[in-house]
Every structure is written in C-alpha cells, then in structure tokens.
C-alpha cells in the first residue's frame, strides 16, 4: 500500500457471554479509501463498528488510529480523536431546527461555554448546504422526509471533521435517486482524503462505491478483496445463497388452476418516513408453496407483518376471498393465516409441551402428528423452550404454528443461523407437510438453496419491491448471477 494506513484493526474480539460476536478481526483502511464491511444479520459487522467507535468494549485486540491504540476508550474520546459515525437510526432533537441540530455537533464539550462561538452558525449553514439541506435550515426534523433526516445525520458527522467516517447501512430505506445523491456525498469524503467504512448487508448495495470489501460471517473473516472478487467468492456465495444453485433438484410446477388463497394488490408499507414496501403484487394459490427470497433488509419480514395485520399498509390484501383491511392480527391468525416469525417468539420459560398446547383445540391428535413430523420434540417435550438449541427452537416454533391448523403457513427465515444438518431435517419436514396435508406455504428466505426446492413459484424481493418472479427452474438462469 502506498498511503499509510489511517486505521489498523488487529485481532479484534468481542464476546457476549458465551457467544463470540466478533472473532479475531483485522483490517486496515487508508486515508482516501472506502471500505465496505459486509455480512448477513448476526455476522458481527455492526459490532465491529461499535467496537471501533467505543460503544462496545472489545475483549481483545487493538485499534490503532493516528498512531495510538484507541481500543477500549469511551466513545466521546474516540470521537474527539477523529472518528465520526453516521447511525442508521438516531433520535434528532425534535424541538430544535435542522440548523440547531447541526450546530450541536459543532459545540465544544464544555460546561461553561453557554454561548456558542460566533462562527458556529456560518459553519453549520455551510455544512447544511453541502449535504443539500440548505432549503430546510429552519424546519424541524419531524416535518422532513426520511432521506433529509439521513442527510442531517451525515451533516452532524461531517461537522466534527472526522478523519475516519463509519456509516451504518448508508442506503437503507432510500430511493434510487437518493442513493445516487448519498453516494456522491460519500465519494466527497474520499476526495477529501478521509477514510470511510461502510457497513452493509450485502456487497451489491455498496459495490459501486467501495475500493475494497471485507466480508464477515458469524463473527469471522470470510474474505477480503474488490467488490467483484468478494461477490464471486465461493464462501460468500454459500453464506448468502446456501450453496451452488446448479445442484438444486427441480420439480415440475403443478397446474395453476387452484383458487387463489392470498392476493396482494399494490401493497405498500412506510416505517415512519422510510419506504419498506412498495407496490407489492403477489398471489398464492391454494396448496401452493411459494418462496419469497431476498437479502436481509429487502422487506420480507415487513411483507409478512402486513399480511398478518401487524403493521399498517396501503393497498389491499385478500385472504380466502376476504379483504383483511381492518381485521386484527388475532382474527387473521384464527382465520387460518398463521405466521411463524423470524424471531420465533417462543415462551422461553414454558416447556415444549406447554408451548404447543398454547396452539389449539384438538390437542392430542395434533400433538401426535407433530411429533411424527419433528421427532426430536418428543425427546424434549418437558424441557424449557429457552434451553433448546436453535434448530430445535425453530422446529418448535413451526410446530406451534401448525397446532393452529393453518390454511396458510408463513415461515419467516426458518434457516436463520442454523447448521446444515438441521436444514436437512427442516427440509424433510416441509416435504412431508406438502405430501400429507393440503397446507399452503409462504416461505421467506435469504438462503436460496433452501428456498428453491420448496417452491412452486419464487418471488425476489429487493429494496421493498418485487424484482423478479417465476418458477424455481428459471431462477438460476435469470437471477442467479444478479442475486447477490
């Protein structure tokens, strides 16, 4: 490397209890370089960012910045040393104007300076104009669109004149046009010879911007290189997609004359001001297994929450011919549309049997059938749900959803964080469900290799929009390369 490293991270390790969230991570970022730190949910990338900023204290490792080891310093000292962070979510001062919010970042950390220095105002205005907030200086944050709030966060980070800028999910919730504008801002940092660390779920989002990518999975380094190299890395593809697409056993799609069970018409969801779902059109027929694949943050969980009546939405969702608008989540679930959430939502201090009993009426028969489906639960029936392994918890969560005898079962990321051997068991259980019951399944997955064999049809969700839909056979040909 020709330029000396601005920040050198070595052997960074963080444990939360028994969980090793970050294990022996090391990298350099030079001045005027943009590095992407990527990894799926739970990979530890956000923890690395927090460790650098001092929000979490590392258990081991060094962070050399400007020749000094700053590992373990409190955040305000690290900030003063020249590291700035742009949070994905932060609470601005709502009573204050945009200008005052930016001025805050320019104030000295003093108890005695009651009046801010006279140049603070002019500097704040200059920064606001640079990030494109010149027209809304005197508005309050609550009245601004989401992208402008992100610009304000960016402005606050710039105000400290940091030598290294950490940016958490720079483009989450932004439209294509806004992404372009933000990319320009971030390139501006590089032009000013600042070092930049972008933390994101996937390479694709930041590929156009970064000089280098560092990929993580389960707290470990996977690979490092240019965006292109990382995207084509064997391990990265396995982590994101579950393996090689060509190996998937394809099954013929069944005839599609069955009646429609679930129909989504132009469904949109807003989280505050961030658009999480946009004009979703989707159809599930009776008895069909439909997979929705997409990376973390694409909007899968939001889509399921809208269908289950957990978040407000625009557009129409019809289930078994009835419009679900205005129906409570409880009524929807009793009507036969049952969701098994990504977070599993088990009752940790109840036994396996008790968790299942919360499910439904015809207990004994249902229970026997479920134990056949997931034999492992038989052995665990008296054990507290909290003490089960991740895979067992997932099976219990699915079993509990099945206790309600759903017509349509929604599984949100059932494979999240599970070992391959468990995936196989889950796979078998799903196959049995298809063969022995008339159930309809809507499966949300990031792991394409898991999702495709269980799909009659596939939808690809990207940035809250349906990017592609079709049969599993076409997926590999048409989408395989572009998915990451």
């Amino acid at each position: 490397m020709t330029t000396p490293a601005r920040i050198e991270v070595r052997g960074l390790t963080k444990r939360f209890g028994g969980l090793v969230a970050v294990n022996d991570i090391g990298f350099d970022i030079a001045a005027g370089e943009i590095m992407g730190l990527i990894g799926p949910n739970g990979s530890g990338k956000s923890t690395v960012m927090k460790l650098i900023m001092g929000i979490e204290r590392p258990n081991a490792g060094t962070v050399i910045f400007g020749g000094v080891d700053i590992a373990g310093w409190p955040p305000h000292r690290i900030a003063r040393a020249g590291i700035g962070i742009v949070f994905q979510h932060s609470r601005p001062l709502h009573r204050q104007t945009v200008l005052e919010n930016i001025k805050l970042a320019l104030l000295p950390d003093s108890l005695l300076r009651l009046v801010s220095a006279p140049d603070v105002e002019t500097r704040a205005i200059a920064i606001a104009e640079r990030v494109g907030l010149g027209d809304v200086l005197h508005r309050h944050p609550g009245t601004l669109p989401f992208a402008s709030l992100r610009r304000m966060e960016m402005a606050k980070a710039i105000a400290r004149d940091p030598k290294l800028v950490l940016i958490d999910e720079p483009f989450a919730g932004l439209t294509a046009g806004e992404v372009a504008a933000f990319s320009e801002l971030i390139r501006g940092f590089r032009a000013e010879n600042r070092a930049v660390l972008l933390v994101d779920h996937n390479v694709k989002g930041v590929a156009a911007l970064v000089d280098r990518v560092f990929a993580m999975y389960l707290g470990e380094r996977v690979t490092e290189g240019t965006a292109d190299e990382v995207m084509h890395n064997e391990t990265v593809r396995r982590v994101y997609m579950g393996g090689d697409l060509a190996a998937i056993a394809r099954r013929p799609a069944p005839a599609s004359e069955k009646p429609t069970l679930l129909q989504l018409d132009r469904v949109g969801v807003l989280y505050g001001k961030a658009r999480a779902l946009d004009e979703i059109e989707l159809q599930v027929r009776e008895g069909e297994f439909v997979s929705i694949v997409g990376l973390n943050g694409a909007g899968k969980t939001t889509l399921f929450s809208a269908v289950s009546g957990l978040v407000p939405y625009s557009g129409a969702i019809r289930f078994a011919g009835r419009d679900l608008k205005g129906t409570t989540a409880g009524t929807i679930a009793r009507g036969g549309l049952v969701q098994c959430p990504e977070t599993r939502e088990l009752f940790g201090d109840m036994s396996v049997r008790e968790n299942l009993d919360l499910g439904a009426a015809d207990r004994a028969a249902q229970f026997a059938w479920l134990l056949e489906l997931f034999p492992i639960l038989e052995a665990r029936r008296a054990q507290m749900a909290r003490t089960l392994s991740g895979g067992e918890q997932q099976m219990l969560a699915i079993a509990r959803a099945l206790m309600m005898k759903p017509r349509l079962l929604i599984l949100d990321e059932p494979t999240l964080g599970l070992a391959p051997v468990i995936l196989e068991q889950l796979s078998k259980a799903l196959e049995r469900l298809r063969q022995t019951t008339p159930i309809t399944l809507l499966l949300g997955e990031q792991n394409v290799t898991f999702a495709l064999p269980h799909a009659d049809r596939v939808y690809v969700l990207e940035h809250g929009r349906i990017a592609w839909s079709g049969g599993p056979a076409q997926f590999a040909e048409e989408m395989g390369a572009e998915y990451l």
Partner: protein
Amino acid sequence: MRSLSRSRLLWGAILLCAAAAALLPWWLSAYILGILTVAYYFGVFAMAWDLLFGFAGEVNFGPTFLIGLGAYGAAILDANFGQPIVVCVIAGALVALVGGLLLVLPALRLRGPYFGLVTLVAVLLLQNFIVIFAHITGGEIGMTVPDVLSADANANYWYALAFLFVCTVILFGLSRSAVGLILQASGQDAIAAQALGFNVTKHKVAAFCVSAVFSGMAGAMLVFYEGAASVDTVISLSIAVQVIIAAVLGGRRTIIGAVLGSIFLILANEFLRPLGQLNTFVVAAGALAVILFFPDGFLGYALRGRQRE
C-alpha cells in the same frame, strides 16, 4: 432566525409576566397571595425536575428527596444553631447537592424505570430517617423554625416571586444555551451524543447538581415561608407526584411550562377545595386528561402550534 425570535418572545413574556405578577398584591387578597407564594416555590421544584427529566432524560420519581434534604437541612441548622436564613438556605442547597451526587451513582448504572425506582425508594428512606430521628427532625409532626422570611403576606409574596424570577432566568437561560442543547442531546440519545464527542457523564452529573441545588434552595425557602418543615409538606410522595404532574402539565422540556403547570395545579387544588374529598380526584382526573390529550403540556402544545405554521 426564527428560533431566535421565538427565544426573544419567551424572554419578553417572562419579563412581562414577572412585572405583572409583582403588581398583584395591590389587587389580590392575602389569602390568594399565600396560595400563589406556595405555587411559586412549587414552580422552582417543577423547573428543577424538568431540567433533570426533560433535558437530561433521567427518570426521577422522587423530586422530594432533593427538596426534602434542602428543607430539613436548612430547618435543622436554623432550629439548632440559630444561623441566619441566608446561611441556612445555602446550607440546605449544599445538603441537597450531596443528595444529588448520591443519586448520580445509581443513575449511571441503571436505566429508565430502574433508576426511577431508586429515586422512589430514596424518598421513602428519607421519610423513614426523619421519623426515626424524631429528636432532631420532629418526626411525623414536623419541626418549626424560629426564623421566618416575613410575617407580611405581601413581603412573602415578593420574596417568592423574586426567587422564582431569578431561578427561571438561570434555568431557562441554561436550557436555551449551548450547554442545554448538549444536555438535551445526551438525554435523548446518549450514544449519539457521545459519538459527537460529548462526555455525557459529565453533562449529566452537572444536571444532577444544578437540579439538586435549585430543589434544595426552593425547599429551604418554603420552610422559611411556612415557618415549619414537615414530611407532609416537603417530602411525602404525594408532593412528589404533584411536582411531576405540574411539570408535565405545563410541558416537559420547556422549563417555563413547569411554572405555569405549578401555578395552575396549586390554584386548582385550592379553588376546588369546597368539593371536599372529591377535590384531589377532580384535579388528578383533569391532569390525566391533559396528559392523555396534550402529552406535550400547555406550553409544549402552544410552541408546537407555532412550529406547524
């Protein structure tokens, strides 16, 4: 510029209200002046609480811990050592300051409701302490102090008003200063504030100190107005709840709102007295309704209205 004009407007309003209030003794009876006098001390209690909760974001369910320390500190010094009132009030403020620093320890370790629980327990402990050491503190009956500010209702009223005015200028000025901005940021998102280079701990400790000193001073002043200190007037949880309701009614994070809320609450309590037992119920129900429908309080609502324009 608009925020500046709004600030000027509020300062103007403070001056105007203070001037108008100073003329009230020529209009009002000694009885009503007495009620307002108490309301003004309450205003300082509520302002000090608002600085800690509204700005620093520390959930303090026991404002009377600090108030009571100041009140009893001053009363004991006066009754046992016969010091002049000024000395006693300063001493009361210092005792409260020590109490405030004691609260800092749990505040830095615990979050939100857990710290709130500690502050509640602090009030109960102080109450027990006073009952147990009845030979010094007068126990449940309370203690009288030999000195009072004045026997004249008008003079007492002006003392209270002047005290309120000075406290308002200092606390409101502080809240609008650069330091106030940092404190608000620390209260709302401590991590984000730290990431901007602010030592959040330092600012929060300062907020505890300021809040404690003003609470303690006001508690001591109230003692020298009433000529007595008792658990029922400066420590009991019902007083603590009233202080909080007053600040919330007036509008959190506004400082001045706390004064408006206090005056309203104390006057309402007094004028509804003919209702007998129903009095407290009506006042509480009214306060609840305001909090439900205008969670930003009187002043918060008014300011928000201007924002929406």
